[in-house]
């Protein structure tokens, strides 16, 4: 959203000729971009309606080059934004006007897979999906699967603490990070965490950096935990006439001591858009559609999926379809996978929101979003991760229509207020960045907001690492 001004505090200097020459000496002339035509494509990330052009973009080619780059930049008093593939959805990796964008995509080595200790050590520019592909070669599994996993980098995932479709059973990126190598604002490099599962030596500083959105340091190496790869998976979809019964079905499944690996949800608006786009034969009068998956040992998967089906039909599902083959499973997954595409092509501007509420509040929250859309004469399709309460109300709008954009802002503010009233959070997996910055104080009402600043000041006293993100 454009209500947040990302302009740096006046004390920040622009990257000048001297600094750019120093950076060229470290990473090589070819790996420093300064021409307007080269910079313009780095002036944004995956977030709608935000644009800031850096003075230069640098691509370190070796891990060892990162620390001297950071030191040179901060010594020059110039703001620094670390960036991976630039797929973020909160403006977290948006550069600062006149600052340096440090792009980590060339640092993409898989350093080691340790099958004895079930870990993988990678550079930050490794693509998320490749981590899981490498793990799969050894019969292992890296569960976090954010929507952009085909191109997002693991460094970006750590910075934003990304989630995905398997959060309910497997957790999020944070649950898999065992260790981090981080370059601090002054150019010092530190190793945080340990390859041992049990490690209580000192403060858990590793966790401070996960989800810090590049405001505290630059990650140059990540040690990730892996799991044995599940042997079987079962996929089903169910439709409901009432959103409440879909929510109740999910609660029942969990009450019956089953934790599905995936419980995804589409509301009526989204079902209709998906059907228009992909013609899957979905019932367009359904109020909700659930995609559920169980994975693990084949016998357990059979047992769990039978119990899940039972819970769905006990709650009045109007249709249940279980995949018998992998091709069928793939077809069922299409309904959920196509959700964002189906919504995104409806209008020129698509704003993807990320509010999250406790599971018990989910039905009420979805209904609130639909009512809010009607009240403000907006189109909002809501889909998301029913298992963990993470919703993606998606505004289908047009940034050129100032009046409509104003109504989008009003609706968003109401949705945020309602989320917080229900004990939820303003962002489940996209991060605060710039898009959610105006709402953070609303959520962190007590001294914790000031505590964030205290942490920031102690690690980045000059305020040069991704300044203006999360909070001012």
């Amino acid at each position, binding site marked *: 959203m*454009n209500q947040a001004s990302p302009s740096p505090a006046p004390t920040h200097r622009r990257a000048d000729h001297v600094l750019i020459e120093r950076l060229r000496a470290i990473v090589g002339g070819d790996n420093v*971009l300064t*021409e*307007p*035509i*080269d910079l*313009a*494509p*780095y*002036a*944004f*990330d*995956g977030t*709608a*309606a935000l*644009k800031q052009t850096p003075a230069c973009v640098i*691509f370190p080619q070796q891990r060892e080059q990162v620390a001297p780059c950071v030191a040179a930049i901060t010594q020059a008093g110039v703001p620094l934004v670390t960036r991976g*593939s*630039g*797929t973020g959805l909160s403006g977290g990796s948006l550069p600062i006007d006149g600052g340096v964008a440090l792009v980590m*995509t*060339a640092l993409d080595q898989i350093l080691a897979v340790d099958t004895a200790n079930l870990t993988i050590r990678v550079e930050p520019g490794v*693509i998320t999906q490749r981590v899981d592909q490498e793990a799969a070669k050894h019969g292992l599994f890296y569960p976090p699967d954010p929507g*952009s996993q*085909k*191109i*997002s980098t693991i460094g970006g995932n750590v910075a934003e603490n990304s989630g995905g479709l398997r959060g309910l059973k497997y957790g999020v990126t944070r649950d898999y990070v065992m260790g981090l190598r981080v370059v601090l604002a002054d150019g010092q490099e530190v190793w945080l965490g340990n390859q041992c599962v049990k490690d209580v030596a000192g403060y858990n500083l590793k966790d401070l950096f996960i989800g810090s959105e590049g405001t505290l340091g630059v990650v140059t190496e990540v040690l990730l935990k892996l799991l044995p790869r599940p042997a079987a998976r079962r996929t089903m979809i169910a439709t409901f006439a009432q959103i409440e019964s879909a929510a109740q079905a999910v609660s029942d499944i969990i009450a019956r001591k089953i934790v599905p690996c995936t419980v995804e949800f589409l509301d009526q608006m989204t079902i209709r858009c998906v059907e228009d786009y992909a013609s899957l034969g979905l019932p367009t009068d359904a109020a909700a559609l659930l995609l559920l998956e169980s994975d693990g040992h084949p016998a357990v998967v059979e047992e769990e999926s039978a119990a899940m089906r039972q819970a769905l039909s006990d709650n009045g599902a109007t249709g249940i379809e279980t995949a018998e083959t992998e091709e069928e499973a793939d077809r069922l997954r299409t309904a959920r996978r196509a959700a*964002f*595409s189906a919504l*995104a*092509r409806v209008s*020129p*501007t*698509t704003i993807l929101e990320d509010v999250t509420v406790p599971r018990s509040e989910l039905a009420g929250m979805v209904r609130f979003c639909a009512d809010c859309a009607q009240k403000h004469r907006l189109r909002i399709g809501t889909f998301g991760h029913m298992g963990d309460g993470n919703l993606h109300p998606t505004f289908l709008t*047009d*940034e*050129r229509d100032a009046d409509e954009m104003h109504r989008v802002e009003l609706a968003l503010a109401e949705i945020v207020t309602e989320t917080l009233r229900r004990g939820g959070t303003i962002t489940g997996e996209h991060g605060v960045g710039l898009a959610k910055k105006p709402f953070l104080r609303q959520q962190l009402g007590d001294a914790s907001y000031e505590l964030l600043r205290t942490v920031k000041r102690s690690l980045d006293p000059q305020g040069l690492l991704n300044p203006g993100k999360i909070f001012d």
Partner: protein
Amino acid sequence: MSSPQPATPGDPTPNLLQTMDYSIVQQCMHCGLCLPTCPTYNETGRERNSPRGRIALMRAVADGDLPLSRGFAEEMDYCVGCLACQTACPAGVEYAQLLETSRAAGEQAGLLASPSRSVYRWLGLRLLMTRPWLLRLVARLVAIQQQPAIRKTLYRIGAMWLAPKTLRDLEPLAPLIDPPFSDARIKPFESPRSKPVARVALLTGCVQDIAYARVNRATVDVLLASGCEVVTPRMQSCCGSLHAHNGDLDTAREMARRTIDQFDWQSEQAGPLSFAQLDAVISNAGGCGSHLRHYGELLKGDPAYAERAAEWDKKLRDAQEYVYEAGGWQPAACLASSAPPSPAASPAAKPRLTYDASCHLCHGQKVVNQPVELLKRLPGYQFVPLGESDWCCGAAGVYTMTQPEQAQKLLDRKLANLRIAKPDVIATANPGCMHQLRLACREDAELAGVRVVHPMELLAEAVSN
């Protein structure tokens, strides 16, 4: 963010990017999902060489934030134009249209102009490709030159050294002209043996016609076997895709009008060329089809043709797509399979057949599974999948000439995948791809004996067997 400014102050005429429909650039959410599918981004890792980066540049030019510069035109030229990004794009951005507009803007401003480039563009796009009779005349002369004995003599006596260097460099790479051309192989109107179930028109193309007229004949045979009456207009022109892809939209529009005018639009008349009587218009070249399906957009500003072009788009079908959906084509029974290589019953002994997708067929036209499904039905072959089949082979229209270095890298990647698939036969549905793979296989130790064909050729053989 703002709506487009008409033009930078002092610049009286807005460029094409400033006058186009701004909502197409706006449709890009810059989510980045196109990045892993883009051959040039894969090569350089730089955003300006990616689809969303190029769209950002287009938008910056439209907004007046960046000048329409030589660097911009070079970037648009560097794009392979494979449209893999359109398959990956969740928001349905019409990248092909943006790229064509950007290239046309660059050409209008003469940003890449050099004396020799201008001469070759004029010779190729304006002279040769707009005059079907001239193209065929030149092709006949080249066919004579390509006779091995004559070619050897021309080189021996030094006559080839009279040609300019560019032509001399291209000569060994030119497609083999294969007369007779389509009009001699295909009658204006052909009927199936059984009662016709549909009537279709066949577009014979330009390069396809002079180098692969046998593919056109095979397509007619397969359409006849599918129960279709086939109408083939005489002396067809280029459809204009070459022009559109290379920044000459004015000529592209002219070629589109000519292509449309080959048919009789006075619907009362029921002659063979009556457009109203046609169930479909068939293209068998992936690159052409991808362009032919969008005449509506190309001619929307032309009051005399807008309506016809929209009708045209509705009937345009790829040959594989149509044959698969019409359902009438069946290979002759297995026992009749007298395919020369190996009639043995065990699948392992059958020749290995693989399919390389033409980018504009799979990404441009979204015809993905139909060719594979048809090829799998062929009794005489063992179908083997090709890794990264939907990844460009580097042919990409004239890309081998405009960007030889990047084209070679793409070709190397394709060959590496082909060596893993170890095919005896490669089927691909676009003349550029066929030509690129034939040349490359011929030079490759492991792939030297591989036959490169159009799927329609194999389908036709299976019928006649």
